[in-house]
């Protein structure tokens, strides 16, 4: 599947429209620098009234044949390879366990009217020559503390398109770099150029209503103000899916996504190609040009 540049632009524009619809900033007035601002500056946690919020919980079901996990050849870094068992290190792109797909970024993509400022810093570790976690979410402006736990050189090369990128070297264990992304962008890819297999994805959204499916495909988004939203689930190989969810105060709304392992195989990383908005399905590809 190949998509031309115009369709990417169209997809990006539509994403922008969705962000605008959910009260997000498209970057027009924000400081797009990747300074160390954010996080701690807004250290006050807004008091949450439990009578106004609910929880979204669900599973990313995976019904198809799970592809075999791809092994990483870490022979160049024996210290890292030693951190894994007999099976050796595996890529974290497609992790299916008990019929659930891990590393899916789930977030409210439309309907959020108001959101508290980011609180605290998010953390990203580099350990045994892999990113931990492989997929994460942050709020726009939130500080990300990126730490090297390996006593060897990693570089963190972030290549967003809506935000400023950065490329920082950490040649030793214990170094922490603080970065942030100023505006919403799903997803920002991070890679280590020293170790070509090391890749992570950061979903940057304007609010704290996001989650990442864990081992077994489970995710939970808590403290969501009651209301009706569009929720989007992103996976690096299987693309994006959307659904409408209604959150009722004091209750948990169950919202499962079903992947067959066929959708969107081969889509381009970080670029949404199918957006389900309510019951409408918008597909961007050559055939629609």
């Amino acid at each position, binding site marked *: *599947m*190949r998509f*031309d*540049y115009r369709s990417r632009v169209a997809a990006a524009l539509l994403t922008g429209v969705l962000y605008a619809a959910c009260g997000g900033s498209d*970057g*027009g*007035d*924000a*400081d*797009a*620098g*990747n300074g160390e601002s954010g996080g701690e500056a807004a250290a006050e946690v807004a008091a949450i009234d439990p009578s106004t919020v609910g929880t979204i919980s669900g599973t990313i079901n995976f019904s198809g044949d799970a592809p075999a996990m791809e092994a990483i050849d870490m022979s*160049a870094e024996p210290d890292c390879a030693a951190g894994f068992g007999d099976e050796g290190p595996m890529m974290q792109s497609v992790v299916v366990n008990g019929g659930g797909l891990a590393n899916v970024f789930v977030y409210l993509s439309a309907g959020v009217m108001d959101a508290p400022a980011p609180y605290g810093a998010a953390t990203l570790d580099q350990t045994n020559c892999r990113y931990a976690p492989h997929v994460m979410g942050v709020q726009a402006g939130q500080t990300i503390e990126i730490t090297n736990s390996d006593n*060897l*050189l990693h*570089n*963190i*090369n*972030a*290549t967003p*398109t809506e935000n*400023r*990128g*950065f*490329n*920082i*070297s*950490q*040649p*030793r264990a*214990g*170094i*922490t*770099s603080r*970065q942030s992304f100023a505006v919403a962008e799903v997803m920002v890819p991070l890679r280590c*150029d*020293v*170790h*070509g297999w090391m890749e992570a994805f950061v979903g940057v959204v304007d609010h704290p209503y996001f989650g990442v499916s864990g081992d077994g495909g489970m995710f939970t988004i808590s403290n969501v103000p009651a209301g009706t939203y569009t929720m989007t689930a992103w996976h690096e190989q299987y693309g994006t899916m959307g659904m409408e969810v209604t959150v009722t105060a004091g209750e948990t709304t169950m919202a499962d996504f079903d992947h067959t392992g066929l959708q969107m*195989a*081969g889509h*381009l*990383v970080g670029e949404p190609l199918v957006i389900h908005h309510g019951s409408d399905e918008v597909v961007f590809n050559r055939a629609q040009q």
Partner: protein
Amino acid sequence: MKSDRLGGSTGLSGPVFLASALFAGMVVQLAAAAQGLAQDAEAGKVVYDLWCAECHGVNGAGDGPAAASMLPRPRDFTQARYQIRRTGSGQLPTDDDIRAAIRDGLPGTTMPGWPNLSARETEDVIAYLKSFSRFFGMGDPPQPMELGTDPGGGPAAIESGAAAYLALECEACHGPSGRGDGASAPTLEDWRGFPIRAADLSEVWLFNGGSSVDDIHTRVLTGLDGTPMPAASDAMNAGVVTPEEVWALAHYVASLGPSQAPPLNEVVRVGRAEAGLPGDGDADSWGQAEAFYFPLGGQVIEPPRNFAPTVDGVWVQGLHDGNDVALRIQWNDPSRSPDPSWDEWQLKVSETLDMDGAFDLDASLAAVDAEITEDEPRGDAEGEVPRYPDRFYVQFPFEIPTSSQRPYFLMGDARNPVYLWTWDSEQGVGAARGRGLASAEELPEDAVAGQATWSEGRWTLYVRRALVPDPEADGITFAEGATIPVAFQAWDGSSGETERRSSISTWYYILLEPPASNRVVVAPMIAMLLTGAFGLVLVRRAQSGD
């Protein structure tokens, strides 16, 4: 901000218009006073469309028609990711940064300097470049990093810098000797996914951001955004290296090669080794032979062309002993081909560089993205990546010309063939007759011999042959004192270089110097004889005349 446009668009009445025009004029003048010259993006568009769009594209996306033949790719201004800055990683460049890049170009890339643009044109085009990206104009203007001042160089600094090179693990990409042969070098990509080389640090004169110690120091701390080269600022702040050691690192890197392109000589002077010829390329006795540098360029005349060759120059030394001649030829190539660890690199290069067709950004991006999609087999029909050896040819005319006429430099033609010393990393050294590119016809009787060794990103090729060819062999005679045309051609198999896709030099000369002792004795004698004869003539004329 021109007053006529201001008046036209607002439709204000006379006095109000005059006042606002005056006010606008004052603002422009104030801005001009503050920044030197005011910038006019619209005027910059004219300059850009004329000079820049061919490579950078009319919309600034780095996708001009010429971009397809370039590695690294031209800058995509829409993302405002500038390699050469004095600001921190991820920050926008200052106007000074952009101005310097326009004026000086980026050595080692296809971006030339534009010193002939007027100051006005330069400022205008800066404004236009910035207009391609929405990042400019957001927030505060970018500020250069606090980079400190150079505490000075010298042997101690260079030694300390070599330690910093290891502490920062520069060799992961740049290799132990800095020739771009680090373990990670074959996997490097720019931010678009196009393949990009780790810089060969021994080619200091080709550094994208300039060759001075100050330039190198800045690149270490700011990184080269859009490339895999990270900023070491956090590592320095974390105490991995001290600020002094970063300066020392810059001195060390600057010491790895000449800051200016090596001077170009026309002639390889092959001295006479009275103590005998070195037996191989590693012999210490090569130290006595002068090394001559010759630049090589991609073969872009006959398709398939090579717009981004790996080998960009070669160092040649020669010695002879009256019976044999030996050459030591050295060139940098980060891969010892064929090498499976460069397969992915080779695929990406062949998919990225469009040698002869029209540039198609979509096709190009789709090709480099194919590693993600894996929905089509790559490589040849069987999905195999063809692995080519590295090769090198030394080329001479078959007939030593008596005038400046030489065979066609691309390995001769049917009428004027060339005599080749060939080397192949799998086949070794041999001789051949060339009648045009990719037409080498082996000369098995030729006695040329030699071998090559690869170490830390550099090939050392040793070739040796008798001055007079074997009667059965179809070679040329190297006569002392004769000036013989010579040219060089190189292939890096791991970048898909094979057949016509090569680096090639133009014709130069090789000269076997007669024995030094002969010169010392013979030259004064000839001078004496000539002087005597001239004297005789003068005397005769005086006697026969009036």
